[in-house]
């Protein structure tokens, strides 16, 4: 190593002499600036044109032309240095800079005095000044072996200043701001960033190991990686950067919204799905339309799934996707057609999402990353659909009560149905002359002045927020590489008293054992810890005047809100009966929503482990053996504690209490001291064994690969449950109960006979699901232009019937690809960089859930006091030996292109999916004993287009603008269904599927306005209108469309200006319909709840109103209500609207700190981001409804999150 220096006679200048100089100069400056205020601005024009001139001569020339005085120490001026210079009408500064450039000299100008001095160790002050000074830098670049790298690019960030290294690897850059960053790049090496310094020394560059892989796009099928060039199938990859920055949900599948053409993430469906039905975070996801009818009738367990198969690190993942940490995800591939997905056989028809997690890279330095964000989600809008306020509610009651009273004179019956509601009691008290009109008015008026909106918001709702933090470490050497991360997600939902935390550890190890064998071990552990309190969930139907605390802040008893909770719902408990039960049982039966909050809680502790081991052995040249072994196990413990003050607990004790009257000593058959503990454990274990041989060979113009293997999977759920009575949560003790007595039934109990049929222990091993499969996959490419892909697979499973025809049904696919753009005749088209044409055909399957059907008559145990021995077997489902998986044939045609120097690239795919053998209620001859059995009963079709585009719109050194666009169109049609079609209008309105229409079809009555008494009418096919019930026929019914989006997609724009990034991600859905949340009607004869919306005030009231309004009248009796059909109005086209919308899902502003600052805390990079989520941009409906929320509340919109990412 040597130094290049233009100093000679390196003299040491003591620091104090410099200080002296500054002081002197300051004096001069002061005087000069007073006398000649603007001397400097009258810059003299200097013109010099000389070659091989010495510095000294040039300085003299400048002094002469500029008339400035020069101060410098003679010996610091280099004597033998020759300079070529050409200046014309230059200012003094420019002239001096040019002349002194490349020397170690610097100058200052004070007034008309130029001081030239040697650049020396700068003082603090100089440092501050020097920030604005420019320097010249030099250095040498060598490769990993120490050899000079010739032709490496060296440039200054944010400027046009650049050069390349010479044959010795040296470079020299002039006029570099010394606070700038110097970049050094060489193809195949990792770029280097350095802070500018005069001498950067020798810089060693490291080859970028993964660099070439990264450039080559690879698709992962879960079984193998295929390079894009050799893949004929329809694959898609999301923009990982947008996904990583999305903070509106930790669910990585939901973060895919709008990023993958052909993948619909239906926000409306997600919002409507209860947590229990989220299918492990998959609900609402559809790849290329719905190709199965999962649920037979509402409320029954699903038979199949419509959501894509999730594969993580090659192993099918059936757990909760929210347990996968976005930061651990390296890559995602979505498999959409038969050629890409049919390797997954009988589980591939809904598409496959293949996730690979991060691995350490050999040669990497130890890298530590921190990523965290805090997302503030706020409170939902409880008044999304406006309702009557207290004044309107009471006024309405006053108006309607006289009509109601005519039909309901008996107050006792009213309380039996509605509980003891204050406003009804007042009105009945008045009607029965128990109070005066003035008293009634006063009481009602005081109710009208109360509003519980604020109390509901204060006591039962809180702001939601999420904190998500990850620290990851990766690194490794040639033998061992690793990636590890720890993650914490703290979720605060809208319900006070709830805690939700998830902790994760992920470890990924790869070992290279010699030249032939490599082994990988991946362990991913998740622990979820939740605690749910007993917070009252405020139904919006509560009467609006009902307060929860009185004016003094005391919690109020609100008995009518809770009756006797049963499995079938709440049984109303009038105050009169409550008092009797209370006095007999000696148990307080009042219900106080606020005090209830601390009387029960449920904790859940879940532990989930995802373990994947892999081995790869190179058997001979081109032939590898690969073994993949996955083991997923989960265990969730739930403890639900109710203390003895808990309302449900008190009711239960009361129901089993025997006491003939309030004087005898009650017999408590369930302990009245202590509460109850319910413990539940649910565990599952799943394993996958896969052995495959992989042969890969390239020769001449041929590229050939063949994979064949065998796989077995098994999954078993196990549950246990236990109930402890008389539970003391502090002492952790329980009391015995006589279960045999409770099961036989307690006669003469306080509220009538009661029995407790369930045992206090339960659970057991669940339905086991096993499969065994064989598969093969072939890929052949000729001349790097013509590619052929083929797949074959057979699945056998205990989920299908015993019959040979059910088991022996292989899937297969065949696909071809033509790299048209590389043909010679396409070469003249300069703007075209790539053009591939793909065509594929094949079959994929969809398997039923375990337990959907069986090859044998299934018996289950049942108890009943009327049974011969009190217990026995019932035949719960008859055998169907012929059930087979749903089969989907997929035709796919696509092109991939890239144009204008890869500025715009994209894929366009068209597909037809024909599904046969849909699993559902196959109609059988009723004379067999069963009119239907779970079998293969229909077929449907999905056609569509997927478009994905990415573009680089602007690309300069400081500013870039990239865009991504996806568009998916899907047309779905049910082509056959072996079930009876509806024969009445009512049945058709009630269904959402009909042959010839898309799934989720919306059928409605054709509203014919009101008749002369204010009841709704329908317009029939012949044009007549009627309000008569039970008369509509299918032909009278209108088809409005489907409630499933027909087209959907997203648009992402990413702007980068220096250290600032701005990205905006828009999603859109359309072509479908939805039902309005409005419902200005009621069939409730008494106004006992506040379900009423404002429109009700504009209802039909007197004859003639039918010309002014279309809202039906109020009817005061059940008889009148059942003589009309209110759905003629509420299920008509009046309430169906276009559901199309565009939403700005997220907009993110990010800023990366300068490397200099990052380095100060020993970090390599620090960036911050600010995100705003969910801004509704446009809706097609004119009611301003957000189609993502069709219920009565809407989640907070325009929420904000803050995030940071630090790399050490």
């Amino acid at each position: 190593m040597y130094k290049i220096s233009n100093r000679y006679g390196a003299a040491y200048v003591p620091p104090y002499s410099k200080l002296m100089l500054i002081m002197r100069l300051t004096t001069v400056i002061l005087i000069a600036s007073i006398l000649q205020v603007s001397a400097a601005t009258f810059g003299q024009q200097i013109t010099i044109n000389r070659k091989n001139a010495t510095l000294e001569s040039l300085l003299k020339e400048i002094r002469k032309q500029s008339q400035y005085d020069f101060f410098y120490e003679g010996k610091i001026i280099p004597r033998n240095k020759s300079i070529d210079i050409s200046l014309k009408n230059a200012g003094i500064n420019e002239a001096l800079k040019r002349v002194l450039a490349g020397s170690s000299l610097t100058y200052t100008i004070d007034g008309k005095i130029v001081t030239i001095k040697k650049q020396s160790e700068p003082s603090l002050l100089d440092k501050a000044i020097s920030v604005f000074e420019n320097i010249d830098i030099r250095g040498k670049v060598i490769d990993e072996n120490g050899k000079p790298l010739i032709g490496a690019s060296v440039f200054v960030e944010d400027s046009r200043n650049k050069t390349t290294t010479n044959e010795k690897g040296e470079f020299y850059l002039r006029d570099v701001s010394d606070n700038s960053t110097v970049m050094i790049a060489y193809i195949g090496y990792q770029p280097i960033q350095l802070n500018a310094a005069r001498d950067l020394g020798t810089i060693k560059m490291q080859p970028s190991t993964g660099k070439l892989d990264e450039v080559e796009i690879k698709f992962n099928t879960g079984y193998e990686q295929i390079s894009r060039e050799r893949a004929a199938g329809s694959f898609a990859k999301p923009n990982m950067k947008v996904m990583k920055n999305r903070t509106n949900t930790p669910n990585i599948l939901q973060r895919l919204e709008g990023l993958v053409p052909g993948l619909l993430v239906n926000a409306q469906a997600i919002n409507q799905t209860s947590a229990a039905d989220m299918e492990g975070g998959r609900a609402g996801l559809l790849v290329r339309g719905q190709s199965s009818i999962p649920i037979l009738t509402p409320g029954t367990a699903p038979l199949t799934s419509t959501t894509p198969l999730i594969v993580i690190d090659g192993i099918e993942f059936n757990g909760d996707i929210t347990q996968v940490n976005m930061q651990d995800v390296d890559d995602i591939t979505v498999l959409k057609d038969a050629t890409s997905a049919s390797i997954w056989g009988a589980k591939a028809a809904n598409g496959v999402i293949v996730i690979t997690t991060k691995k350490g890279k050999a040669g990497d330095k130890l890298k530590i990353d921190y990523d965290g964000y805090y997302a503030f989600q706020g409170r939902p809008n409880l008044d999304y659909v406006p309702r009557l306020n207290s004044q309107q509610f009471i006024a309405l009651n006053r108006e309607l009560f006289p009509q109601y009273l005519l039909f309901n004179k008996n107050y006792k019956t009213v309380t039996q149905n509605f509980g003891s509601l204050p406003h009804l009691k007042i009105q009945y008290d008045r009607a029965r002359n128990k109070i005066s009109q003035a008293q009634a008015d006063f009481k009602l008026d005081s109710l009208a002045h109360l509003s519980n909106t604020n109390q509901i918001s204060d006591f039962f709702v809180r702001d939601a927020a999420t904190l998500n933090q990850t620290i990851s470490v990766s690194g490794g050497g040639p033998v061992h590489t690793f990636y590890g991360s720890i993650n914490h997600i703290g979720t605060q939902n809208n319900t006070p008293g709830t805690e939700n935390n998830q902790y994760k550890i992920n470890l990924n190890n790869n070992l290279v054992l010699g030249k032939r064998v490599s082994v990988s071990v991946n362990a991913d552990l998740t622990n979820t810890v939740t605690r749910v309190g007993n917070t009252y969930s405020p139904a919006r139907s509560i009467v609006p005047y009902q307060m929860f605390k009185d004016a003094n802040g005391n919690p109020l008893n609100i008995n009518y809100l809770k009756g006797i909770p049963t499995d079938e719902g709440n049984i109303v408990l009038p105050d009169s009966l409550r008092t009797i039960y209370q006095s007999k049982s000696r148990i307080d039966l009042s219900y106080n929503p606020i005090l209830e909050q601390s009387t029960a809680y449920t904790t859940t502790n879940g532990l989930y482990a995802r373990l994947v081991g892999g081995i790869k052995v190179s058997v001979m040249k081109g032939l590898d053996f690969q073994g993949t072994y996955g083991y997923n196990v989960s265990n969730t413990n739930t403890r639900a504690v109710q203390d003895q003050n808990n309302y449900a607990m008190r009711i239960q004790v009361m129901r089993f209490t025997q006491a003939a009257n309030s004087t005898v000593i009650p017999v408590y058959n369930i302990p009245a001291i202590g509460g109850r503990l319910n413990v539940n454990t649910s565990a599952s274990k799943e394993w996958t064994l896969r052995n495959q041989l992989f042969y890969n060979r390239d020769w001449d113009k041929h590229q050939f690969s063949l994979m064949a293997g065998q796989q077995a999977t098994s999954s078993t759920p196990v549950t246990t449950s236990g109930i402890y009575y008389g539970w003391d949560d502090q002492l952790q003790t329980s009391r015995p109960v006589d279960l045999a007595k409770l099961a036989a039934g307690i006669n003469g109990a306080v509220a009538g006979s009661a029995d407790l049929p369930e045992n206090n222990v339960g659970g057991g091993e669940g339905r086991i699901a096993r499969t065994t499969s064989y598969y093969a996959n072939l890929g052949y490419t000729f001349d790097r232009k013509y590619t052929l892909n083929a797949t074959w697979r057979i699945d056998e499973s205990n989920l299908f019937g015993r019959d040979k025809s059910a088991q022996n049904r292989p899937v297969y696919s065949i696909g071809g690809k033509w790299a048209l753009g590389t043909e010679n005749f396409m070469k003249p088209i300069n703007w075209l960089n790539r053009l591939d044409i793909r065509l594929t055909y094949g079959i994929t399957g969809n398997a039923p859930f375990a337990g959907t059907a069986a090859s044998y008559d299934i018996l289950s145990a049942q108890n009943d006091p009327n049974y011969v021995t009190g217990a026995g077997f019932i035949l719960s489902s008859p055998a169907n030996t012929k059930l087979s998986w749903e089969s989907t044939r997929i035709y796919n045609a696509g092109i991939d292109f890239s144009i204008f120097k890869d500025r715009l690239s994209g894929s366009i795919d068209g597909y037809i999916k024909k599904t046969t053998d849909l699993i559902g209620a196959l109609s059988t001859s009723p004379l067999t004993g069963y009119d239907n059995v779970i079998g293969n009963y229909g077929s449907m079709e999905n056609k569509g287009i997927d478009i994905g585009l990415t573009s680089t719109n602007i690309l300069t050194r400081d500013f870039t603008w990239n865009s991504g666009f996806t568009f998916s169109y899907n047309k779905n049609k049910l082509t056959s269904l072996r079930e009876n079609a509806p024969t009445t209008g009512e049945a058709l309105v009630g269904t959402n599927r009909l042959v010839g229409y898309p799934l989720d079809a919306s059928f409605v009555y054709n509203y014919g306005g009101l008749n002369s008494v204010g009841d709704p009418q329908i317009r029939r096919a012949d044009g007549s209108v009627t309000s008569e019930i039970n008369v509509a026929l299918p032909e009278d019914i209108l088809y409005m469309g489907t409630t499933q989006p027909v087209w959907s997609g997203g648009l992402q724009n990413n702007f980068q200006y220096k250290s600032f990034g701005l990205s905006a991600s828009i999603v859109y859905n359309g072509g479908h319909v939805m039902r309005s949340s409005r419902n200005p009607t009621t069939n409730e004869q008494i106004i006992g709840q506040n379900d009423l919306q404002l429109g009700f005030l504009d209802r039909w009231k007197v004859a003639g109103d039918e010309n002014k309004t279309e809202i039906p009248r109020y009817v005061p009796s059940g008889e009148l209500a059942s003589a009309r059909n209110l759905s003629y109005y509420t299920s008509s086209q009046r309430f169906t609207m276009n559901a199309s919308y565009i939403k700005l899902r997220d907009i993110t502003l990010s800023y990366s700190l300068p490397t200099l600052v990052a380095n100060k805390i020993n970090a390599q990079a620090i960036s911050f981001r600010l995100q705003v989520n969910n801004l509704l941009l446009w809706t097609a409906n004119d009611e301003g409804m957000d189609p993502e929320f069709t219920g009565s509340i809407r989640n907070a919109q325009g929420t904000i999150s803050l995030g940071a990412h630090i790399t050490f």
Partner: protein
Amino acid sequence: MKNFNIYIVGLVLFTTMLSQVSCKKEFLEVVPKGQTIAITTADYEKLLNANYLTSSFNASVYRGDEVSGLQPYFDGMSDLINLRMQRLFRYEDRVYNADQVPDEITGESNYIRKLYLFNKIINEVMASQGGTEAQKLAILAEAKAGRAICNFMFLSDFTKPYNAATATTDLGIPNLTIADVNQKNFKRETLNQGYDLVIKDLSEALPDLGITVHRRKISKLAAEFYLSRVYMAMNNYPAAKLHVDAAFLECSKAAIPIELYDYSVVLNPDNPDAPGSWLPDSGLGLDNEPLAANNTEVIYNITAGWFQFQSVDAFVFSPRTAGLYVPADRRLNLYSPFELFSAKIHPNGMRRRTSGFFTGMNVGPTLADMYLMRAECNARANN
């Protein structure tokens, strides 16, 4: 290198072995836990233990002369179950919509569904494991008698009354003997063939049936009763008499009490605290009415469900029926004069049923039936 080859060979062997393990048929032929299939004789017995027959909303109730329809409830009925009742009451030609399957056939504990179960047991039980020959024969006999009861109900609902002169040409029912949901061909046999199968099944079952131990277990008593009933339906009163007499003999052998209730005690509203009283009436039926399994009049329990909120006040017994009861008749306590949840009294003495509101009422053979049958046989024989 040699070592390595051994390793590879080992690996290939290991792989082959693994595939052997997972390819075995047994790997897939697992019986999932949480449910079971019938294998042992005991399994079949348990199937019979939980087995019972019901019918819901019997068509004959709504077509019966003793029933009136009450407005406006009658016109206000809207869903399919209720529309069926309306149509039955009006004797309309079409009772079901074209897309409906008759409730008589689809009911979960109705005779068609139970024929599947009885046929399964008849065809399989003799090959079951673990039981003695006698146990298997007893189960077989119960199932055969059960099949006969089902077929008799099936004949009663869907065929003409038996007439010996035309029975060999009148259409009967398809005689169902196989349990398989994939069956597709069903042919109506003659009425004679139908009755023949019923009598054959009952006669074959008789020797292996036991005494009455439970009111939901088919006993020799139940089989004799049904033989008598079937012969009565065939107008063969001498044969009916033989079997009803045999039934009375069986009554005395029963292990459980078989006797009539004293309605003046159990239905006495003035003394609801009397031992064995069925009262009080909570508004939703009599609180202490005995369970079907404990009702001493019941020989073999078949339940008829009729509870439907919408139709509670729509169908009441007619004024003419009301006229048949003297005011002091205690059986009136099985009916309510009030509208549901109301103090409004039904007009003209009409009443609605409240007893068995949720549980349904027994329509299977009772001791009272036997007295009536014997009386009729005697009367027809001029005794």
